[in-house]
């Protein structure tokens, strides 16, 4: 795990100094953060990096996990899909399963923060512990694209959101007014984009030999251009759409497609989507649908991204798409859907290409493979944008400001 001073060569001394200035203002405060999984997925990744760094700059932060069985996580996967706008049967039985486990967590979890930061719908009901800690500030952090959620489920979750002091979303388009019609109380909402850790195994510089070892392990040739989508096997990431785009590119350019994902412990849909991907790949030897070995996940993802000539993220919905952040950080040309938080990261034709269709994806991949100078320019601009706005140090700053915001009102606050 990297120490805070190791970020100085990347972001500069003054940016790190400012984190200490903010942390001093939180002296004596305890931050408790809660989510549903310790490994797999962007939230766990960020917390694994952030919690030790917070401690290092003097912020007392604890990370707890809720518990849940297979039924509970099947239900929360349905929630995830329905909040993204996919059709799911959110029946009363489904909500009952969710509430049963949630109330067990409410009863069993020890809440002890001055500021409590809850991630995503799985632990949202923990707000029911508020009466035990009436002085604490409660914040709910939503990492999901809720621009067009299932209305029944939104209403159900909204009752809990209204009990929080603040809610955080990853993109402006996810924001809806959160006003309690009875009391008139409006919940504060903040925009906090996620981030990547430039020094993690997934993002740090690695030698060419490491990349070659990974390519050899998975039977990927270094003789043909590599187009990749590195993302969970999830319908919302549209891996089948990526294969269709690849087939259109393949008419003109002899390239390879790498689809690579890992398995998050709270994602029960993985196997089904992976089977469909293999079926669509139709035994084309240049399509590599990989399930990354969890023991070497980060370094292998890093190697595959760095080996890629073009990186695609053809999602139908996205919370933020940290895979795009990772790709841009590695100065890769990226073709990605204009959904969720992706337009915050890519300015079309400046730091990547935004697309909406399979055909558009294919056309942009072809253009980038044929125009290396154009591809290089997009990659360099993308890298600079990520460096300035989407690294863990900016994320820590936002959280420190958020914690201070729960204690200080007003547009301009002098501390």
């Amino acid at each position: 795990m990297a120490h805070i001073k190791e970020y100085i060569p990347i972001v500069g001394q003054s940016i790190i100094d400012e984190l200490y200035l903010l942390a001093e203002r939180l002296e004596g405060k305890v931050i408790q953060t809660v989510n549903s999984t310790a490994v797999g997925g962007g939230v766990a990744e960020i917390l694994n990096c952030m919690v030790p760094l917070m401690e290092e700059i003097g912020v007392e932060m604890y990370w707890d996990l809720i518990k849940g069985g297979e039924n509970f996580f099947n239900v929360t996967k349905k929630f995830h899909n329905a909040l993204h706008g996919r059709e799911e049967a959110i029946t009363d039985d489904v909500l009952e399963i969710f509430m049963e486990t949630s109330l067990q967590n409410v009863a069993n979890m020890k809440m002890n923060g001055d500021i409590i930061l809850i991630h995503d719908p799985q632990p949202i009901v923990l707000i029911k512990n508020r009466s035990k800690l009436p002085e604490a500030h409660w914040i709910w952090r939503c990492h999901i694209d809720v621009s067009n959620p299932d209305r029944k489920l939104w209403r159900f979750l909204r009752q809990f959101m209204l009990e929080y002091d603040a809610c955080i979303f990853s993109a402006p388009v996810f924001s809806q007014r959160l006003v309690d019609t009875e009391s008139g109380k409006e919940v504060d909402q903040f925009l906090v984009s996620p981030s990547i850790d430039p020094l993690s195994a997934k993002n740090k510089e690695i030698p060419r030999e490491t990349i070659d070892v990974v390519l050899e392990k998975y039977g990927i040739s270094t003789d043909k251009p590599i187009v990749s989508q590195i993302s969970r096997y999830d319908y919302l990431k549209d891996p089948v759409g990526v294969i269709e785009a690849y087939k259109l590119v393949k008419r003109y350019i002899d390239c390879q497609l790498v689809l690579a994902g890992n398995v998050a412990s709270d994602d029960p849909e993985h196997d089904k989507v992976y089977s469909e991907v293999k079926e669509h790949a139709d035994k084309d030897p240049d399509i590599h649908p990989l399930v990354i070995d969890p023991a070497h996940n980060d370094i292998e993802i890093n190697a595959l991204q760095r080996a890629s000539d073009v990186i695609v993220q053809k999602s139908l919905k996205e919370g933020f798409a940290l895979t795009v952040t990772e790709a841009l950080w590695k100065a890769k040309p990226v073709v990605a859907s204009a959904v969720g938080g992706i337009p915050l990261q890519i300015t079309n034709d400046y730091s990547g290409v935004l697309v909406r269709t399979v055909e558009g994806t294919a056309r942009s991949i072809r253009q980038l493979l044929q125009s290396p100078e154009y591809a290089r320019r997009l990659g360099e601009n993308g890298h600079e944008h990520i460096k300035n706005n989407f690294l863990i140090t900016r994320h820590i700053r936002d959280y420190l400001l958020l914690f201070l915001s729960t204690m200080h009102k007003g547009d301009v606050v002098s501390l």
Partner: protein
Amino acid sequence: MDKPFYFYTGLSIVELTGRRARNLVDLLDGIETLPGSSIYYHTHRFLIQHHYMFSEPLNDFAFWISDVLQEDLLAERIASVDIMQFSSIRQLRDRFIDIIEAYLKDNRELRTAPSGEEFHFMKCRTFVLPTHHAAETLEEFAAMIEKISRHSLYFHIFESRLRLEKETNDFSYWLETSLGENELAEKIARLDPYTQTLEGLRKTIHTLVTRRLEGR
């Protein structure tokens, strides 16, 4: 002894209002009714988030009017508002209102943003903190200008003048009132900071101060 210059920094978090505009009337309504921190945010966001880009920043209102509503004439009028000529957010807001109202009088047909491309009103909450940096002399000031964070530079040049409604930027005020460097203060006050990157601005200020030191 001259009064030292204490460097502060301004760090902001973005607040979502949940309000959005689908057409010019909605946009006008938001500009009229939302707090000044929203007007400030939408006219300055680009400077800090894209501080390394060389192209002239557009404010968010102009960008949306042009990119989504494709009302290019109005977009150009809004983009061309010279923020340096305003000493308060209130005045700036009134200028935007005047321009949009005048445009609406002549153009009755309202264009509507496609679903998903609405304008989302945001605002920012800024925390102002003292840094550990200070300068007592022009030499120390030159050294510190190279060292301070871009947030600190941004705060003293943009935020302090417009949001705290000071007559000029903090650097010019101190140079004039504490060091009697009236000419240098005037030169910094006359810079056009909205058409430069923050690093470009830092270099320009540093060069002006260094030249003054060399010319003593």
